[in-house]
C-alpha cells in the first residue's frame, strides 16, 4: 500500500469515526442557538467558530458528516445493487435481454444526471431519503457496465460449466460463481462513487434542494455561509475543506484499490 492510499484510508476512517460517534465528540448541541455569540471566529470554546445564529460550527460539521456520509453510502449501495443486478443479468443471458438492458443503460447515460435529479426533487420534494434514492438510481449504469463486462468473460470459464455439470441453477451460478469473481472493479467504482455522491449531495444542498435546514449537511452549511462570506471566512472554509478532503480521501482509496485489483501490478 502506498502513502497516498494510506492517506485516503486514514481520511475515510477518521470521517467514518466522526460520523458514527458524533454525539460523543461534540461539546455543543448542533442546533442550539445563541444569538449573542453569533459569527464568533474560531476560539478555544468553539474551535471552528460559530455561525450567524451562534450555533457551534464544529458540532454542525460533525453532525453534517453523518448526513453527508450516509447519503454517500446509501446512494452507492443502491447504485451497486441495481448495477450488479442489471449488469449480471445482461452479461449472463446475453441475446435480446442484453440488448434491452444495454440500450436502457445508454438511454440513462444520455440524461444530464444533475438536471434529472433537480427535476425529480422538484416534483417529489427535497428529503434526505429522496436524495439518497435519486442519486443511487442515476448512478448505477457504470457499475452495470463493469459487471456485465466481467461476467461476459467469466461465464466462458470452465468452472462455470463445471458448476452447471453438477446441477447448479442459473441463479446459483450468477450469485455464487460469477459475481464474487467479478466484484473487484465494482468495489473500486463504489469507493469512487461515494465521493461522487457526497459531491452531488453538497451541490444539491447548496442549491437548497438537498438536505433541509436545520438539519446540518456540509452543503447547506455552505449555503448559509455565502451571505456572510465577507465577514466570517471560517463558515465557508471548514465545510469546503471537509468536502475537499473527504472526496480526495475516497478517490485516493479508490485509486489504491484499483491498483490492488489490477492483474498486471508488480508483486
Amino acid at each position: 500500500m502506498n502513502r497516498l492510499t494510506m492517506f485516503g484510508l486514514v481520511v475515510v476512517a477518521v470521517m467514518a469515526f466522526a460520523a458514527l460517534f458524533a454525539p460523543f465528540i461534540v461539546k455543543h448541541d448542533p442546533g442550539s442557538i445563541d444569538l449573542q455569540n453569533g459569527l464568533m471566529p474560531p476560539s478555544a470554546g468553539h474551535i471552528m467558530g460559530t455561525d450567524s445564529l451562534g450555533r457551534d460550527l464544529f458540532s454542525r460539521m460533525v453532525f453534517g458528516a453523518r448526513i453527508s456520509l450516509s447519503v454517500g453510502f446509501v446512494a452507492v449501495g443502491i447504485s451497486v445493487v441495481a448495477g450488479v443486478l442489471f449488469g449480471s443479468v445482461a452479461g449472463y443471458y446475453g441475446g435480446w435481454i442484453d440488448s434491452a438492458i444495454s440500450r436502457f443503460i445508454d438511454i440513462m447515460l444520455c440524461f444530464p444526471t444533475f438536471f434529472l435529479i433537480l427535476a425529480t426533487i422538484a416534483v417529489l420534494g427535497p428529503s434526505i431519503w429522496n436524495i439518497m434514492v435519486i442519486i443511487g438510481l442515476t448512478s448505477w449504469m457504470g457499475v452495470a457496465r463493469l459487471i456485465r463486462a466481467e461476467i461476459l468473460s467469466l461465464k466462458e470459464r470452465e468452472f462455470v460449466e463445471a458448476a452447471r455439470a453438477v446441477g447448479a441453477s442459473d441463479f446459483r451460478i450468477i450469485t455464487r460463481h460469477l459475481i464474487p469473481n467479478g466484484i473487484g472493479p465494482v468495489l473500486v467504482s463504489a469507493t469512487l462513487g461515494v465521493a461522487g455522491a457526497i459531491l452531488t449531495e453538497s451541490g444539491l444542498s447548496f442549491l437548497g434542494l438537498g438536505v433541509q435546514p436545520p438539519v446540518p449537511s456540509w452543503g447547506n452549511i455552505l449555503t448559509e455561509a455565502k451571505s456572510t462570506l465577507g465577514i466570517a471566512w471560517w463558515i465557508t472554509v471548514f465545510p469546503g475543506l471537509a468536502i475537499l478532503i473527504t472526496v480526495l480521501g475516497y478517490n485516493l482509496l479508490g485509486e489504491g484499490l484499483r491498483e490492488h485489483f489490477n492483474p498486471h501490478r508488480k508483486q
Partner: protein
Amino acid sequence: MSKEPLLEITDLRLDFKHTGSDRMVEAVRGVDLRVFEGEILGLVGESGSGKSVTALSITGLLPKTASVKSGRIFFEGRDLLALPEEDLRKVRGSRISYVFQDPASSLNPVFTIGDQLMETVMLHQNAGKGDAFDIAAGSLKDVGMPSPKEQMYAYPHQLSGGMRQRVMIAMAIACRPKLLIADEPTTALDVTVQAQILELLSELKEELSLTVILITHDLSIVSQVAEKTAVMQQGRIVEYGDTEMVYRKPSHPYTKKLIDCIPKIGGR
C-alpha cells in the same frame, strides 16, 4: 450379452450454428452407443470428431449454438432429451457427473475446495452444513487426498494439478452417481500424474460400482483402463467393441491409423 444398458444413445444428431451465417454444421451424425453398468467405455477420436459434444448432450449441457436434431438418450428408463431443464438439473451431479479437462480452470478461484464440494452435496442431498462437510471430506478421502479435512480449507491455487483433478473427481463422485463422464481428464496433466488418475478411476469404478465414459484422443490411455472402446470420426462411431479386439484387430482404417500413432520404443 442380454444385460440392459445403463445408457443407450440411439441415432443422435447434433447441429451447430455456423457463426456469422445461418448455415448449420452437422457435428454428430447418427451416433448409436450403449454403455453397460460397471464398465469403462473409452470414447476415442480426434479434435472435432464430436466426442465431447456427444457427452455434453447427455445431460443437456450443449452450448447455445448447438441443437439436437434427432435421437434418444435413455438413462435409467427415461429419455433425457425429453426431460425438462429442471429435471435434468437434478440428474446432473447426482446421477450423472462430469470431470473436465482442465482442473486449473474448473474450480472457482475465490472459494475453498471445501465450499465447492459442499455446494455440490447440498444441491442434491437434504444435508445440513455439518453433514455436507463430512460427506465432502469423505469424498476427498475416497480420491486419495492426504489429510482430507485440512485440505477442505485450501484454495484451488494452493493445490497441484493432479490434486486439483482429484478434487474435481471428488466433486463428481460426492453424490454417488451411476455414471461418470470424464472428458479428457488427464490431458492437462503430466504422465506420472496421468497414470495415478487413471488408476484412481479404475479403483473408484470397483469400489462405488461406477460406470465410466472416458473421452480421450489418446488410444493408449483407453487401452490401459477401458473394457470397451468406441472410435469416433467426423461425427460417427466407426468402430465399437471390446478394447482387446479393437486394439488387436481394428476393422476400420481410421482405427488402424490411430493405433499406428502410438509411439513404440525401439521402432516396430
